[in-house]
């Protein structure tokens, strides 16, 4: 073929390849990957290989995790490219390559099912496929894209091998699938079922129907048993060669899958994943969770949703009906929990797999049919029908509108992260990296909060160790595997389970050598403060650094899993080597005809030349032209018998009218829907008001009010209402109850608002009066204007402390002196209490119930009082250990927030250590506990030594300091009849208290029902313990000031 002819034939494919390169290249280099979910995770993995190619163990996440848990090829390629560019550029290049290869692969895959021109259109549609745009620019799933491209290019070789039996095709197909296996095992494994399954089945059907060249025609003798036997034999002879070739291919593929990533399979066998199911929105009911429906159904399908009925109709009516069935199956499974059928089909796998991948595969499989659709519209029957019935202009308009919609939707999808932020604003990591690198801060672990997926980008830039990570399959800490949360970093999005897990880590930082927390979300500040952490300051990038005193540094040697040399060699060589192996196979098969070569080899040649092998395995099965599809689709015969319904073509005017009416109905329907959504009702006004308050749009919230206050007065009134709910909470739920009123223009609505804070959730009941004014329903706010601000000077005096650590060298930073300097403490009134009705863990969902056992109710608490008997403030850490009769440790934890962690000289605080979470859940019987050990230790501190709050009267708090107290906290002790300590309760006030101002005390937390004491021996150990027994204070009040 001349170059000119070749160009003419493939110009659309070239256009598609250039288009894919330009479209995705521009967006990727513009930085879309920064806002994706997974890009930074893959960059982190690549960073591992860039740093230590031969060691498949990374200590930077999860106290160490194995890299063999994820096939490495794409990460290793990125790592190699980073040596000449940078990690992000390497990622972009591999991703761009994947997108272009996928475009080529779609053409080649489509050619198996449709003619040349539809296949070209399919490749053009790939460029603006919204599912690919979403995978690349929203999800950042590099391995998925890479493997999809490679796999689509491998499948034509698989087809060719099974059809013709050329060893060249088999070797090339295996080579490409080896690359795919090294890129992502799940896509190769599951994807092959849905992609190669239709190929294998369709080829078998074709062979079944196609007479062999040597096959004599069946005589016209009447049907007999012998004739039937001959017919069966013929068909077996037709099918068997292909079947055997499929078997050869299948066995080879399994060997390739196993060998290429053998360390992965060995790991998954020896160390099965114990993580309980983490909810994923792709498993939700899309009609209920419409946001999930948008992300996992509307966006990936996009314009293709309109083509789906055509594809199913066209597919089922042709030889491609198995592919169409595969498409339908995947599309249906991709609807997640919208219907119960996918869960029943997939069984247990439903709760492990993320189902968006099925939708992604379906949107790829539909492309050959979509190419057919475009071809039909531009050159075929569909276009002809439109011209005949509506006119040529309409065909152009429909094609143009579809093209416009496709491109617009692809652009919208690719930029979705700009319109709708899934990640926090980009964080400049340099200040954090520098902080970790200096003064030996990397001798401890750190944690990020509110970073989103950017935490992986931070990890990629430092050798410091993070206590968690962004790849939950690699988790092994029970505190993480036993909770259904994706990341501690975004704990607030997983509500109580997420925060419960985060609390475990922040309460017991010494267990993980966790000393620093980088906070990019105010939400977590109260939890850190009341768990004994102190704020070191704010970095240049506005990220806050919090520190915990008295945490031991990391051991000199961090435990790592040493893999055998052969496994490390395999992992380092084979994945990247698969590319070279494939290149070699492509090259060698270009010059050598393996079928001929085999038959020339002595001995082997005799076998190959033998009829058995030639016929069953290697010979081409020349295929006769396919008969019309109707002949083998039995149902068509039935359909043909049905009376034909002939429709008289309508006049053009009528058609135009109908189309216009349809369009108008759609527009009107949308309008009504939007209007109903924004209907002016008391509830909708309250909903909008709360929404504005939740997202801190205070000026907007004023517009929903009917009040005598001016906007400035209202804003001032709001500013005086600080506190945990106003400043550190997230609105979780709202429910309304409307009273019946006599006046239709008045309404009284009771609102129950559920607020989530880092310290727990609050339900706040409010009663609102609303009035139907000229501008709609408005909330009546009848409060007196707040006093105008006046200049008032409030002065206080307080001692301050500075600890001059004897830093001889940076190597010695606080590693010796600071730890050794222990505060003198006194402890008393220690008791072990059990509250049988309080929850202590997250009861598993029904699908996890069988494999997760535990005791999820019955809180065990150790209570007491502790006093600082030293002459300087002390940071106090109290740990309780429960042991059985043999002294075996059953559970261990520190005090979370039910104590004052920093004590002034002579100050006394009650404390309560609650056993909850993974450890406590595993104590199936409370009777197992035979002894309790209490470890009390203190170190000097200069933080959090202000005590601004005064209990003015039994029900009033007064702020005696010069700073607003944002979250007042009251610890109250409850005693039994003998004056012994019985319980310690903790209450956070919801309102802030301004300087020199008072606030009423809300009801204090009650003593739990059925509380009883356990009579157990308690051992108290401390580095410096005073024998003095402190008195039990009735109340301790303190608070957090920002």
């Amino acid at each position: 073929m001349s170059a000119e002819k070749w160009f003419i034939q493939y110009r659309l494919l070239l256009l598609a390849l250039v288009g894919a390169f330009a479209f995705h290249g521009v967006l990727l280099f513009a930085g879309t990957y920064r806002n994706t979910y997974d890009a930074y995770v893959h960059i982190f993995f690549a960073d591992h290989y860039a740093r230590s190619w031969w060691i498949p163990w990374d200590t930077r996440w999860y106290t160490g995790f194995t890299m063999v848990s994820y096939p490495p090829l794409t990460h290793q390629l990125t790592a190699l490219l980073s040596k000449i560019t940078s990690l992000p550029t390497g990622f972009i290049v591999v991703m761009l390559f994947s997108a272009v290869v996928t475009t080529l692969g779609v053409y080649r895959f489509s050619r198996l099912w449709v003619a040349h021109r539809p296949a070209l259109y399919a490749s053009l549609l790939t460029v603006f496929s919204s599912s690919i745009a979403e995978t690349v620019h929203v999800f950042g799933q590099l391995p998925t894209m890479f493997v999809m491209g490679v796999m689509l290019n491998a499948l034509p070789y698989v087809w060719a091998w099974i059809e013709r039996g050329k060893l060249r095709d088999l070797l090339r197909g295996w080579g490409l699938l080896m690359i795919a296996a090294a890129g992502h095992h799940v896509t190769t494994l599951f994807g092959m079922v849905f992609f190669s399954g239709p190929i294998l089945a369709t080829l078998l059907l074709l062979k079944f129907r196609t007479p062999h060249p040597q096959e004599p025609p069946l005589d016209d003798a009447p049907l007999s048993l012998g004739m039937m036997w001959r017919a069966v034999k013929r068909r077996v002879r037709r099918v068997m060669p292909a079947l055997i070739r499929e078997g050869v291919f299948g066995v080879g593929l399994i060997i390739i899958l196993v060998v290429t990533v053998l360390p992965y399979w060995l790991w998954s066998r020896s160390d099965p994943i114990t993580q309980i199911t983490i909810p994923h929105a792709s498993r939700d009911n899309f009609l209920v969770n419409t946001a999930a429906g948008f992300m996992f159904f509307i966006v990936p399908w996009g314009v293709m949703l309109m083509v789906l009925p055509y594809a199913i109709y066209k597919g089922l009516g042709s030889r491609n009906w198995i592919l169409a069935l595969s498409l339908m199956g995947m599309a249906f499974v991709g609807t997640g929990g919208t219907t119960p059928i996918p869960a029943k089909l997939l069984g247990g796998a439903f709760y492990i797999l993320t189902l968006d991948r099925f939708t992604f595969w379906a949107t790829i499989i539909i492309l050959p049919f979509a190419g057919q659709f475009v071809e039909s519209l531009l050159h075929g029957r569909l276009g002809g029908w439109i011209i005949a019935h509506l006119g040529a202009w309409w065909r152009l308009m429909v094609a143009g509108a579809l093209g416009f919609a496709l491109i617009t939707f692809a652009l919208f999808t690719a930029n979705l992260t700009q319109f709708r932020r899934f990640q926090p604003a980009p964080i400049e990591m340099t200040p954090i990296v520098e902080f970790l690198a200096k003064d030996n801060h990397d001798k401890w672990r750190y944690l990020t909060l509110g970073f989103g997926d950017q935490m992986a980008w931070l990890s990629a830039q430092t050798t410091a160790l993070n206590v968690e990570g962004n790849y939950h399959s690699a988790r092994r800490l029970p505190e993480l595997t036993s909770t259904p949360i994706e990341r501690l970093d975004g704990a607030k999005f997983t509500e109580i389970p997420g925060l419960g897990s985060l609390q475990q880590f922040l309460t017991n930082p010494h267990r993980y050598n966790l000393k620093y927390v980088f906070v990019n979300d105010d939400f977590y500040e109260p939890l850190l403060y009341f768990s004994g952490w102190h704020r070191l300051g704010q970095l240049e990038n506005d990220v806050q650094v919090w520190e915990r005193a008295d945490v031991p540094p990391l051991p000199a040697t961090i435990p790592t899993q040493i893999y055998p040399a052969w496994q490390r060699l395999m992992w380092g060589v084979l994945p990247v080597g698969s590319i070279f192996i494939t290149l070699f196979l492509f090259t060698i098969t270009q010059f050598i005809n393996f079928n001929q070569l085999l038959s020339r080899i002595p001995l082997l040649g005799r076998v190959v030349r033998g009829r058995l092998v030639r016929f069953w395995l290697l010979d081409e099965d020349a295929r006769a032209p396919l008969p019309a599809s109707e002949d083998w689709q039995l149902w068509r015969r039935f359909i043909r018998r049905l009376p034909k319904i002939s429709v008289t073509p309508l006049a053009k005017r009528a058609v135009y009218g109908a189309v216009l009416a349809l369009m108008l109905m759609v527009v009107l329907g949308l309008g009504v829907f939007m209007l109903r959504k924004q209907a002016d009702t008391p509830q909708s006004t309250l909903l909008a008001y709360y929404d504005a308050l939740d997202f801190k749009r205070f000026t907007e919230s004023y517009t929903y009010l009917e009040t005598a206050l001016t906007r400035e007065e209202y804003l001032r009134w709001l500013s005086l209402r600080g506190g945990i709910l106003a400043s550190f909470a997230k609105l979780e739920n709202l429910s309304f109850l409307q009273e019946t009123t006599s006046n239709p223009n008045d309404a009284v609505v009771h609102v129950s608002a559920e607020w989530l804070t880092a310290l727990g959730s609050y339900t706040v009941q409010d009663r609102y009066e609303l009035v139907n004014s000229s501008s709609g329903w408005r909330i009546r706010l009848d409060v007196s204007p707040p006093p105008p601000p006046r200049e008032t000077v409030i002065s206080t005096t307080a001692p301050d402390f500075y600890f001059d650590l004897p830093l001889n060298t940076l190597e010695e930073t606080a590693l010796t002196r600071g730890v050794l300097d222990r505060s003198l403490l006194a402890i008393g009134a220690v008791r072990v209490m059990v509250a049988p009705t309080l929850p202590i863990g997250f009861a598993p969902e029904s699908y996890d119930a069988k494999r997760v056992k535990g005791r999820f109710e019955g809180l065990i608490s150790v209570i007491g009082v502790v006093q600082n008997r030293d002459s300087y403030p002390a940071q106090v850490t109290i740990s309780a250990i429960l042991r059985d009769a043999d002294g075996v440790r059953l559970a261990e934890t520190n005090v979370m927030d039910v104590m004052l962690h920093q004590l002034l000289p002579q100050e006394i605080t009650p404390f309560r250590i609650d056993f909850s979470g993974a450890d406590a859940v595993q104590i199936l019987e409370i009777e197992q506990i035979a002894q309790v050990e209490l470890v009390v230790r203190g170190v000097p501190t200069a933080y959090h030594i202000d005590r601004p709050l005064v209990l003015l009267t039994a029900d009033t708090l007064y702020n005696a300091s010069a700073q607003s107290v944002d979250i007042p906290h009251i610890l109250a002790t409850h005693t039994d009849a003998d004056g012994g300590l019985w319980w310690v309760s903790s209450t956070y006030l919801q309102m802030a208290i301004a300087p020199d101002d008072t606030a009423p005390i809300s009801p204090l937390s009650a003593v739990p029902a059925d509380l009883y004491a356990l009579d157990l021996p308690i051992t108290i150990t401390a580095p410096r313990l005073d024998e003095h027994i402190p008195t039990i204070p009735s109340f301790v009040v303190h608070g957090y000031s920002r």
Partner: protein
Amino acid sequence: MTRLCLWIIGLLLLIPPVRADAPLTIVMPTSIVAGEPLSIIITQPTAQAGDKLTITLLHGFSRHDAQLTIGTGGITNWHIPADELIHAGEALLLVGDVRQSLTILPNTPAQTDLITTANSLTAYGEGKAMLITLVRDAFGNPIIGRASLNVLFPNFTRLTMSLPIRDGLGWTYFSSVGGVGRTRIRLSAGVGESALEIRQNPSHPALIELDIVPECLFADGRDPLQLVASVYDGYHHPVADGTQVIFRWLGGEGSALTLDGTARLSIPAPTRTGVHYYSAMSGEAQSNTTPLIIAERCAP
């Protein structure tokens, strides 16, 4: 038979003659101190001048190999320069099948670390802390021996003691002497010397004097009430800065921190006319109850 005899004779001729080797002698000290040069003289009378001799010294995890040329009289010398053998412990010399051990002793003390379990102590003999010292030679080898400890208390009392050091570690308890001030501690061992200062702080609160300023207030709730507590230890020294003082009154309480022995708390005055009583406590000390008069008019 003759053939057999000849064959046996031939076989015997092939076996090399047994030569009685003269014993190889090694002259070297049985012990040296870390960093000291080492000279080893090896004599092998049967060896010819120019012959090579391989010698190995195993020293901890390190291995020193040398190939020596034997001189006249079968004598050769291996000199290991100073600062090569620096780790204290046993070394083993291997020459062929001959083995000889060498002990490397720590050198003289050159580095000392001084650590306490408390940066400050309660004065008047009420405070006790542990002093820990780590003594090493110039190469980091722990020392066995004694170190000299000198403590100068705030009242100029001097304590001198010889601290036994075992495996580089020495420790002792010491109590505060005298009143509030700084205690200077100096430890010396060989050329190594460390110094440390520890604060001697006031003792626990023992006496609280509570003042209310003013003693009488209008009942309009506009004037602040200041509670001032002066807190002293048992030796009438103001307590340490930052000591918490709790003020109590009917139905309420508040706390303040001492600065130079005085804690102040400003709170809104009660509005109910009459006499209100206040008290202060810190540690085990408690003040007398002090009255405050809230009235429509206060006497000048």
